[in-house]
């Protein structure tokens, strides 16, 4: 393994995934530094979600290396152990536990032991309650703590899911289209929230909404047909003729 991999938080090299012969990821390489926030854009079907599936253990790559913290080989691990390493994920379609209350959703996500027997006899501690309270404030759902998640609006579910991510206390957050289906005001607030989070954690955000990406003001990676097309500031990639072609050529 090279120097670059050793100092990175997340290291993908030559990763390929194919579904029935169709290459969703094609020799994708990507490096995220500790503490970095990165925006990933790309047209529909570019492979953004598939990339997250590979990192979180949902999909096993056909080829390539996937390392976390410089040396942990993620290809050999299942979803639960990858999550326990400190990689949290927010899905493109908001998925919260619908028949649990907002509070219970956060409590389930809270960092801590995960074994079945530990959970049978688990008693909630004062510290855990404070932690949940703090997250409720951050995601502005304090008033709705007793609501069933099913009854939240789309935007509120997105926020709850971000709250669950925070509760996990991950080192790396993978956030798939957090602003999808949000009003402009909510989108702007989400950008602020993510930037706040990025102060202490590494974050990878996938988003289509260009205003949102501009608000984030971070390095951008453009994916196309399963590999990196361009990388740099938003202005840099927007000026790249290949990127322009991909977006206009649709």
């Amino acid at each position, binding site marked *: 393994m090279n120097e670059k991999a050793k100092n990175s938080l997340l290291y993908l090299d030559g990763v390929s995934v194919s579904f029935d012969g169709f290459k969703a990821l094609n020799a994708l390489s990507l490096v995220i530094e500790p503490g970095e926030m990165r925006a990933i854009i790309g047209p529909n079907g570019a492979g953004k979600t598939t990339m997250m599936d590979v990192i*979180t253990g*949902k999909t096993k790559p056909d080829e390539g290396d996937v390392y976390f913290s410089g040396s942990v080989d993620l290809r050999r691990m*299942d*979803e*639960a*152990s990858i*999550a*326990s390493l400190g990689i*949290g*994920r927010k*899905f493109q379609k908001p*998925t*919260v*536990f*619908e*028949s*649990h*209350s907002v*509070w*219970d959703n956060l*409590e*389930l*996500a809270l960092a801590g032991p*995960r*074994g*079945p*027997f530990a*959970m*049978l*006899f*688990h*008693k*909630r501690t004062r510290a855990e309650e404070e932690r949940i309270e703090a997250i409720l404030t951050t995601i502005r759902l304090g008033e709705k*703590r*007793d*609501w*069933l998640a099913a009854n939240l609006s789309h935007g509120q579910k997105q926020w709850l899911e971000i709250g*669950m991510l925070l509760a*996990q206390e991950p080192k790396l957050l993978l956030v798939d289209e957090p602003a999808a289906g949000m009003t402009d005001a909510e989108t702007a607030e989400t950008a602020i929230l993510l930037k706040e989070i990025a102060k202490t954690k590494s974050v990878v955000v996938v988003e289509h909404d260009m205003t949102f990406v501009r608000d984030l003001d971070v390095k951008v990676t453009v994916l196309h047909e399963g590999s990196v097309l361009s990388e740099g500031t938003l202005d840099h990639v927007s000026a790249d003729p290949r990127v322009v072609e991909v977006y206009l050529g649709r």
Partner: protein
Amino acid sequence: MLSGFLLRALDRRTWIVLLLLVAIGLAVPALNLFTDPSSPIHVPTYVVALLGKYLTYALLALSVDLIWGYCGILSLGHGAFFALGGYAMGMYLMRQIGARGVYANPTLPDFMVFLNWKELPWFWYGFDMFWFAALMVLVVPGLLAFVFGWFAFRSRVTGVYLSIITQAMTYALLLAFFRNDMGFGGNNGLTDFKDILGFNIQADTTRGALFLASALALALGFLVCRAVIASKFGKVLVAVRDAESRTRFIGYRVEGYKLVVFVLSAMMAGVAGALYVPQVGIINPGEFAPANSIEAVIWVAVGGRGTLIGPIVGAVLVNFAKTWFTTGMLAEYWLFVLGGLFVAVTLFLPKGVVGTFIGRKGANRPGNGIPAAPAAQPQPAE
């Protein structure tokens, strides 16, 4: 730790159910034993046995609800665990017969003598002792559930596929137990029991005691289920039911949870079977019939999936209807009625009788909230 675990489950509704079950467990035998047969409040012995049977069905239904209602595992083979518990008890009861059998062999049950067997097979050892048989009532179903669940849950078999292989499991056992050389009495099964713990199994007092034992077992089963559901473990189960892969991504190893609850549920079903056998006086391979397992699921759907009280109500209601129907001239139509009932409940009462008519107070309270019951249709877990 364990007492805290159980105490946490004791909310008002749980207390009511427990007290009610204990009261019924005492009242029915008392009305049988201590009232005059001509008295209007007298409960005839056959009714005690019948109601006792319903209670064991209710415990089976409860065990199905624990995994289906709260974890989304639709087992269509739970009758197998019930039957295995029943066989373990039946083997003890056979050994209790001793030399009083038709062939008067002090160790070998009649059917073995009939088959010309000279020695007791090794797997019959120990069943002359009640404590051993009682242990096997838990161990055998639990072990089968463990082995089955280990492979099924690790390979992530879910939904319809899981239901189908549970059916296959109980069907395979049905065929196996039909064979004489399996050593469990072939298609006649185990019957002609005489004593249990030294008491005449036909005596009214023994029947009363068995009834009480069934009521207490059901109460204990209910308490354990409540405790499981009220714990953080229970919340994880519901999370698995609602969105299985999401649960994995926050770090829970789902197969472990499924395995634990599946084994617990199988043991409960085993206890139900063990109490069923002395009250009906026979256990035969018919108990493994796939249709039995499906019926148990219907009881749960009718009563209300994911409510714990619902399956008890459903099991009693449906079986009461069954007894009423199948003793009348409408007997042949029972299966149509049952099928119709299932369709009607799914369409018009997706939360079952209890889920529809009893609100779930406090469902949203963070502390001890019981998660909301799902509709009868399984929700797609992503």
